């Protein structure tokens, strides 16, 4: 029987009522009295010396309030980077200054050069057209391997080269890894590209800055996944505003996918300009601006190799990646190809020796940072493509080769510095074989061939690290922030609760799932619990939502705070019931004395806390409100196995996804419906990357895929009905809920399955090309089939 409330129930998402009826309150819905509008004049060339920005004609245009250029921000801090990577020589990465508005040079198409604040957006835009720029073109740095060659033009003249860092992991293992390759019975090598993506949340970015001259208080409304992080980065590092004078509000946010984690120039600009103009300043990104100013994702060029012994056991793995940073370091960019990528290279396998090299490279492109999965999709893709290639070179079954090399004992310490607490990769693979109806594949292939089509089947496994933490460890790894989460649970006099969480919901469904946990703990209906998030003025300092961390870390903080509430409430109950505290039990919303029929309702206890007439005032304070900060002791490690079945039209190269099955282990599950939805969304993005999405620059640094006319997003008709199963559950051992995180799995686990399936289809048509790069477009498939 499915439960109708609490942990494990598919409670309907309460937030959808406002989202689906147009009642959401998004940042663009916020319009302040007297607000002015900003239009950013952006560079249309990739690389050049900015000789002058002449605003004199523009200043005289109608409606102009004030025009800003890079010179206005010379005294202002650089947009900061939140993670410092130390390279294989022990040197810290090269970290360029990142100005709010370009100064001296422009470094990518879309970089803001000047900002016009005017009475209306169209007046601001008209005036921007009257700004005269004098830019001397410089050769654009686009190709990463060219960029790191001696003598290449430099993106940043004050750095020694375009190499941000050259990271080796684990450097001490390198000799042993190389030796294992010399001793190998077989070596498989694969070179591949992990294609650059644009996140494309449905809601573009928006920022509204406000300044109250009477109090000196600043407020920024912004489309962010983590308002406290923005407050800290922008306040402390860019504008020099202390936290108590700066409020950051991220109201309803229409999707983030990582690209709304980062602190952007436009946020700092609107906050700064609101004070300079003494009126609210609003910016709403157009879709065209989003393509050239939202941080992009992925963009790795990799060579990976596996060494195997004569019995097909994996003996060593090594991989070399060039990771594109773009023109500047976005907030978490350096961590993505290193700590979120290298540490995952063991995957689901007990490969004893691993060495990962990553060269992060500056280019004249939009900065690249975390995008759904962030580093883990790049790790999974290269590893799972490689394992498939091994199997074909050796002539063994790809699933059998995987099974043979699976990690089967937990906890398992990988050679890349992480310890998996739990997992059961055999169970998820067994489940996958069942739900994907592998047995029926041969018949389906025959049916496709009868229509002149090829059919392919591809699988992959994945492991990811979610709930990014603990703070002391990430601090050693270069994070300039802690990665705990916070919650304040406020119980009202009549028994209802408000949870103020540092997590942020931008589609994930926290407002539904979090109350389920508390409802279960106390035994009260979910609708007695409300979630508040997204405003630094009324939530405790929190790190926000990304890396599938909300329930695992934020939910755990909420559990800890609720435990404190329950402990105090039991003290009050024991007083009311005149019993000893140790005998008090909480069940179904009532406190009772063990072994008796004496009880007092939840609401009577909460009322007593606020009307403490009969109350142990000498022992405890009145009121019922607790805060907890939770800093986990490890990451969580969701895992799973995915299968994709494609049909390929050999005449056109067109590939359709006919079936897709996902068997995931997310540990315990609070709301199965929401989990299924998260997997569906992740799969759509992973399939989008595998089949369609491609952010492309030409050699001059012009963005070719700059709109939906050329950047292909997956649509419902491109996707099959998924078969999703999350019944394999090995609970996380170190957080109180035993949960692991499910938000990114679909995007991490699906691209290799799609490409493996396409290659399988091509082989069945007599063409074994070894590898094909994503996106697997019709043109590429046709070229590969006919090459």
């Amino acid at each position: 029987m499915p439960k109708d409330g609490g942990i494990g129930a598919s409670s309907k998402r309460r937030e959808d009522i406002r989202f689906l009826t147009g009642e959401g309150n998004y940042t663009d819905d916020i319009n302040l009295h007297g607000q002015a509008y900003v239009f950013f004049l952006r560079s249309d060339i990739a690389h050049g010396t900015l000789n002058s920005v002449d605003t004199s004609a523009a200043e005289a245009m109608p409606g102009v309030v004030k025009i800003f250029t890079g010179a206005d921000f010379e005294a202002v801090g650089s947009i900061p980077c939140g993670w410092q990577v130390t390279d294989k020589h022990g040197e810290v990465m090269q970290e360029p200054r990142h100005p709010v508005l370009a100064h001296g040079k422009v470094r990518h198409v879309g970089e803001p050069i000047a900002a016009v604040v005017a009475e209306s957006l169209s007046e601001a835009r008209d005036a921007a057209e009257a700004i005269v720029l004098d830019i001397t073109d410089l050769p654009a740095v686009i190709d990463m391997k060219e960029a790191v060659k001696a003598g290449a033009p430099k993106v940043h003249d004050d750095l020694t080269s375009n190499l941000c860092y050259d990271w080796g992991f684990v450097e001490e293992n390198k000799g042993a890894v190389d030796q294992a390759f010399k001793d190998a019975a077989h070596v498989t090598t694969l070179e591949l590209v992990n294609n650059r993506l644009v996140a494309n949340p449905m809601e573009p970015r928006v920022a509204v800055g406000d300044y109250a001259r009477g109090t000196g208080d600043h407020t920024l409304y912004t489309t962010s996944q983590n308002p406290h992080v923005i407050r800290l980065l922008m306040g402390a590092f860019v504008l020099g505003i202390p936290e108590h004078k700066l409020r950051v509000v991220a109201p309803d946010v229409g999707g983030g996918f990582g690209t709304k984690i980062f602190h952007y120039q436009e946020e700092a600009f609107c906050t700064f300009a609101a004070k300079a103009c003494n009126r609210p300043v609003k910016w709403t990104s157009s879709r065209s601006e989003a393509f050239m100013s939202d941080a992009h994702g992925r963009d790795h060029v990799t060579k990976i190799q596996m060494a195997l012994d004569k019995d097909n056991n994996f003996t060593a793995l090594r991989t070399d990646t060039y990771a594109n940073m773009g023109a500047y370091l976005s907030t978490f960019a350096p961590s993505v190809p290193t700590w979120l990528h290298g540490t995952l290279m063991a995957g689901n396998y007990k490969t004893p020796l691993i060495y990962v090299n990553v060269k992060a490279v500056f280019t004249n492109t939009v900065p690249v940072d975390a995008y759904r999965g962030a580093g883990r999709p790049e790790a999974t893709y290269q590893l799972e493509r490689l394992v498939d290639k091994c199997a074909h070179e050796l002539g063994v079954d790809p699933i059998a080769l995987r099974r043979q090399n699976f990690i089967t004992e937990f906890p398992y310490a990988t050679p890349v510095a992480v310890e998996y607490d739990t997992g059961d990769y055999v169970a998820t693979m067994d489940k996958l074989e069942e739900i994907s109806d592998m047995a029926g594949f041969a018949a389906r292939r025959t049916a496709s061939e009868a229509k002149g089509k090829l059919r392919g089947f591809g699988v992959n496994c994945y492991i990811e690290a979610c709930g990014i933490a603990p703070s002391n460890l990430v601090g050693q790894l270069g994070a300039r922030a802690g990665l705990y989460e916070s919650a304040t649970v406020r119980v009202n006099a009549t028994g209802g609760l408000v949870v103020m969480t540092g997590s942020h919901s931008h589609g994930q469904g926290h407002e539904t799932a979090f109350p389920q946990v508390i409802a279960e703990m106390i035994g009260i209906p979910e609708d007695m619990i409300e979630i508040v998030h997204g405003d630094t003025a009324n939530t405790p300092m929190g790190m926000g939502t990304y890396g599938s961390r909300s329930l695992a870390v934020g939910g755990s903080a909420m559990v800890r705070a609720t435990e404190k509430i329950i402990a105090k409430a039991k003290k009050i109950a024991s007083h009311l019931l005149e019993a000893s505290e140790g005998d008090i039990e909480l069940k179904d919303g009532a406190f009772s004395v063990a072994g008796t029929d004496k009880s007092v309702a939840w609401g009577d206890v909460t009322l007593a806390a606020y009307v403490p007439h009969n109350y142990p005032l000498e022992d405890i304070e009145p009121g019922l409100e607790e805060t907890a900060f939770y800093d986990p002791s490890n990451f969580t490690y969701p895992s799973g196995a995915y299968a994709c079945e494609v049909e390929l039209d050999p005449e056109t190269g067109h590939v359709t996804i006919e079936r897709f099955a996902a068997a995931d282990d997310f540990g315990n599950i609070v709301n199965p419906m929401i989990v299924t939805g998260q997997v569906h969304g992740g799969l759509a993005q992973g399939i989008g990357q595998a089949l369609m999405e491609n952010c492309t620059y030409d050699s001059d640094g012009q963005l070719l895929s700059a709109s939906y006319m050329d950047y292909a997003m997956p649509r419902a008709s491109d996707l099959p009905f998924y078969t999703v199963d999350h019944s394999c559950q090995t609970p996380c051992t170190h957080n109180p809920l035993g949960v692991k995180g499910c938000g990114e799995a679909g995007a991490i686990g699906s691209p290799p399955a799609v490409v493996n399936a396409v290659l399988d289809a091509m082989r069945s048509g007599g063409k074994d090309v070894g590898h094909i790069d994503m996106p697997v477009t019709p043109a590429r498939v046709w070229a590969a089939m006919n090459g």
Partner: protein
Amino acid sequence: MYNFDVEKPTSIADAVAALGREEAQPISGGQTLIPTLKARLAMPSVLVSLRGIAEMQGISTDGQGRLCIGGGTLHAVVAKEAAAQYPALAGLAARIGDPAVRNRGTIGGSVANNDPSACYPSAVLASGATVVTNAREIAADDFFEGMFATALEEGEIVTEVKFPIPEKAHYEKFIQPASRFPLVAVFVAKFADGVRVAVTGASENGVFRWTDAEDALSSNFDAGAIEGLTVDGGGMISDLHGSGDYRAHLVGVMTKRAVAALT
């Protein structure tokens, strides 16, 4: 968008007069023009809306049995009302863009714009249709002059398109995955006196007739008849979504599939 005036004439004559104003431009559905204006890539001072002109609306049949579609007729209307008489044309209209596009965009706008990847021009050319303007009648073979170029003079508007109805016809479209315009699409129309094959999406010169295929199919209307025929990849569009050679190859595949659908 820059500022402009809007005129809303209710007759062709008034529209033509309004188009005589300095920097005037007609607008029908706006599905192409409005995005251009929003990107500030055009700055007309007057937009003359053709939407309110009743004589440019609707579908009828003339004395020669031709299907006459008013230049202001919406794609959605063609999809519905031409289905019985000219199903291939109705099917083409039914698959342009999405419902919002089909309920604003017009045949006149599409034909006048002559986007090298637009659907309608292939049907107009393969059907040997006649494009009627406020001033004259222009045969399809003389109308399309290259990418975004037509025989229309300044201020001349497409008021109607007259389609001879073939014995059978089929439109085969292979979509560009991002825009969903044709990457390559082929319209094959079989008349009593021969077959016409028009190709869109492929050529740098816009819609064109594949005469080798027409000859082969006119003597033997069978997909096998074009086996071995090729178009040259040289003049084909080469971009993110496919090389010229790939497009040239697709011309053959789409033509074969169109014929196969009819035989």
